[in-house]
């Protein structure tokens, strides 16, 4: 005796299965998720820009002169550094200004205590909350003999010729 107990209603089952699979396929394939792998691109663009700006500030405009970067660091002129850095960074070819902000630290070696120390060169402005996706750009700067040592430089920083590391944090507000 054949009855319909335990059987699938075949055509309906197949149709429902195909529809479900198709729906799942369409949903998954049309979803574009901004993965963590993509976030490095704006970061890379910002890092490249920061690195370019430091390199260009470290290039003298005429042969045999001192670069702007070396002058700012050796005279401890954080205001001038901030202003020049941001003017290079925010310039666009359309003439409008981008909205980038920065802070900077300088790392040096204290020869007496044989320690690596750092001091703030440019303090962050009021757009800094600590949650920004900031990137870092660095450049070694060779300083001449500091005579006399500019006001505001740490007391344990040497005055003889030395290399210091300028570290800039750059973020878009």
């Amino acid at each position, binding site marked *: *005796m*054949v009855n319909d107990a335990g*059987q*699938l209603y*075949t055509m309906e*089952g*197949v149709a429902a*299965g*195909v529809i479900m*699979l198709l729906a*799942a*396929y369409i949903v*998954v*394939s*049309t*979803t*574009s*998720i*901004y*993965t963590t*792998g*993509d976030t490095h*691109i704006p970061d*890379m*663009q910002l890092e*490249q*820009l920061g690195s*370019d*700006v430091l*390199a*260009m500030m470290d*290039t*003298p*405009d*005429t*042969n045999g002169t001192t670069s702007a970067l070396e002058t700012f660091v050796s005279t401890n002129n954080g205001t001038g550094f901030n202003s020049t850095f941001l*003017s*290079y*960074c925010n*310039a*666009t*070819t*359309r*003439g409008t200004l981008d909205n980038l902000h920065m802070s900077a630290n300088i790392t040096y070696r204290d020869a007496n205590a044989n320690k690596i120390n750092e001091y703030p060169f440019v303090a962050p402005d009021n757009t800094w909350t600590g949650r920004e996706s900031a990137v870092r750009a660095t450049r070694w700067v060779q300083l001449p003999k500091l005579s006399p040592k500019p006001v505001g430089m740490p007391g344990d920083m040497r005055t003889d010729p030395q290399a210091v590391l300028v570290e800039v944090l750059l973020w878009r507000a």
Partner: protein
Amino acid sequence: MADDGVLSLDFLAGFTIFMLALVMVLSMVPGLLAGLESSGIDYDAVAYRTGVILVEDPGWPAYPPWELYDRDNKEEIQRMGLAVSKETPNILLSTKVERFFEESFFTSEDYRSKVIFGDIPYSYNISLRSLDETYNYNTGDPLPPGYGYIRRVVKIKEPGVAEIKSPGPEYVIPDPSAPEWNSTARNFTVRLNFSQLLDPGRGPAYRIDPRTEPVNITITNFGEYRNITGPSVNATLHNVTFWKMDPTRPNPRFTRIPFSYDTIDANLYTLHINGTADQHSLQPDVPVDSSISLVLKPAATSLFTLDQNSILDIRFNFEDDPPRTNITGTHPYDYTNVSHAGLKTAVLEVAIW
């Protein structure tokens, strides 16, 4: 006979079709994951690559440099980079910049095949602007939403100018009545010693290289060289000629370089006299009242077959009977006499979509 444990044929058929569909969908999983990457990634990468080629590469061919190729030989250009040299990333050469943005010379296809590259015909917008706005170039299409982008900060190197402002004692004949000055010709020479100019001790960003940059010579206050005072006695510039010498050869001597001296060609040189906009050939035969301005383009110097040891003389010849100018001597075109404006900071943007 009991039917316990027996599957129906209908169920088997349905289950088989379901399994086949499942296998098919699973085989598409790699394709499904492709949807997880954003479409901007590729454009950003192409924009970055294009930016690197433009600001870190001098282009190819390197010598003679690609920017000197004329329309007939444009196809020989392999790659258009704007850097002064590969040792000086981000320092661009003004002559390369000016040629690159010459839209009447390069087509969209040239930009795609010589700087953007890739199999896909990308749309692009490349722009450059200096902070002092002396450079403001743009090529390509208007920007749509969602494009790949890179911005680079650069400096632009410009050619120097040798300006001979007023007569120093070394450029004036002290006693025109002396017998050695009885000729009707007066010659004034500007000398380019390539071994000094191309000294490797000087960085490429600050080097005077007449093979890639124009040579600018300006003689001002020419009236102060007059032999006779009076309003109508201006000396006549008969011709300007080019002479070269290779000191490394035995018995070196200056030889006149064959050149189309009588043809006006702004791609090779420009000669302006008395501050007017009129262009003259190198055989002008015109009276000089106030100034002479000669710009010798690298396209011309590349025809002179000069090397790093050559000496190039640019000779200004004045012919009058009796002579109307006391100008004489040789003015070195060197790092002392040539003034440079300094590198100019600029921003270069590349957008690709």
